[in-house]
């Protein structure tokens, strides 16, 4: 953690849990991330906003080592994601929960099985204990009575709550949320946001949340930033970011999502 070589990097806090320096990522000729640098401290909640296609999902996938980057460094919990061997990469992923826009539940498993499969097959948790923990988690997200139901029988909001429970089952210290509510009907959004709030309060977990839910962001996030064309346009404490943004680009973006 000692060396901060890159230029233009934000002042690195000593306990930065995620440390991203000058990350570039392109798919073939299309460059998606153009020099991203940011720090997320332990226990901090960072909200990421930005227009469609600006690279938000790509950035989250890079933090989880699901994509390789072309240049720069990403460290999570002091481990470099890019140079990690498979064992280290697995350890990084075990300490990180990922919640996807389209839930990505395993359709061939019941809600409970979705939650218990990873503890059982990866951590070696005995089935009885994994099931007990799984039921507790389902209860926490208000899905106790749907334990033995398959994902196709659940509503979008219910699927996302199971997906959150699935990520929590691995006891992560970091959660990445990629537009967790944007695929949901407005009535279902609040039930999912409520669960995320609760997770934050109960575990004081470090979180990176891609969302355009301003009310939620203001109440939970410590910081917010706008990503546009693969670059950070503005970064500020959440309240200031949403109520009094410094950049014209941010003001335009916020107007656009409010009018949505």
């Amino acid at each position, binding site marked *: 953690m000692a060396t901060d070589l890159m230029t233009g990097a934000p002042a690195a806090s000593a306990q930065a849990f995620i440390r991203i320096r000058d990350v570039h990522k392109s798919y073939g000729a299309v460059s998606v991330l153009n020099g991203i640098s940011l720090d997320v401290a332990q226990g901090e909640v960072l909200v990421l906003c930005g227009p469609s296609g600006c690279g938000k999902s790509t950035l989250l996938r890079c933090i989880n080592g*699901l994509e390789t980057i072309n240049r720069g460094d990403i460290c999570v919990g002091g481990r470099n994601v890019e140079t990690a061997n498979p064992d280290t990469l697995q350890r990084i*992923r075990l300490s990180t929960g990922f919640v996807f826009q389209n839930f*990505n539940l395993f359709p*061939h498993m019941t809600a409970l099985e979705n939650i218990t*499969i990873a503890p059982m*097959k*990866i951590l070696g948790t005995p089935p009885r204990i994994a099931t007990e923990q799984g039921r507790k988690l389902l209860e926490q997200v208000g899905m106790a009575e749907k334990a033995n139901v398959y994902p196709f029988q659940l509503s979008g909001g219910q699927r996302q709550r199971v997906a959150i429970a699935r990520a929590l089952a691995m006891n992560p210290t970091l959660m990445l949320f990629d537009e967790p509510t944007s695929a949901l009907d407005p009535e279902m959004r609040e039930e999912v946001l409520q669960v995320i709030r609760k997770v934050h309060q109960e575990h004081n977990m470090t979180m990176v949340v891609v969302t355009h839910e301003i009310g939620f962001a203001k109440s939970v996030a410590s910081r917010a930033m706008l990503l546009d064309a693969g670059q950070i346009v503005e970064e500020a404490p959440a309240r200031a970011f949403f109520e009094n943004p410094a950049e014209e680009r941010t003001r335009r973006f916020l107007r656009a999502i409010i009018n949505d």
Partner: protein
Amino acid sequence: MNYTFQFGVLTEYGPYLAGGLWHAWWTSFPSIIITTILGVVLAAMSMSRRWLLRGASVVFVDLFRTLPVVVLLIWIHYVMPILTGVSFSPTVSSIIALSLNGAALACEAFRGGLEAIPATQTQAAQSLGFSRWKVMRYITLPQAFFATLPSLTNVHITVIKNVTVTVLIAVPEVMFRAQELTVQFFRPLEFYTGAAVLYVALIWGYALLMRMLERLQKWQPI
């Protein structure tokens, strides 16, 4: 056409002809099992990160998909013993030939099924800490299995039909016995029609069984 039907011969020799089904089944059943297992392994290999495994899978599939089963069978039964000194019974030679051919077809079927699983399933599993192998074992293969069942059934039916070529190396299955009886009694129409009916019944029965297996799927893709 002035052929006088005498299906009467079937009442006497029908049971002998039908007994050939026993041999047909014991040639095709092991072949179906090997075909399926080898097909899954080849499909998994074809998606490996190691080029050697991928290459081996491609060579295997291309070779045995293009080699006509009759050529393969004759080669294994008559040529291989000359080269290696190892020879097999007609049934074992047949099982080997049918399995190699079937595995190449099954590999393609499984690969189609695996590739149809969205990449987001793999990402979700990897983000939970699943290794590439465990993703396949617990997430993609079980989902691909049901998606592949209809085309896998077709591969299995091809394998069962291919049993008829084993007549060339004298596996005493239905076609072989029909030929035997025809030579003896000069009643080709009766005996070969009998053989046709028996094979159709076997394959229908098998397809029905597989249809029942499809019903075991309790979930739906989303």
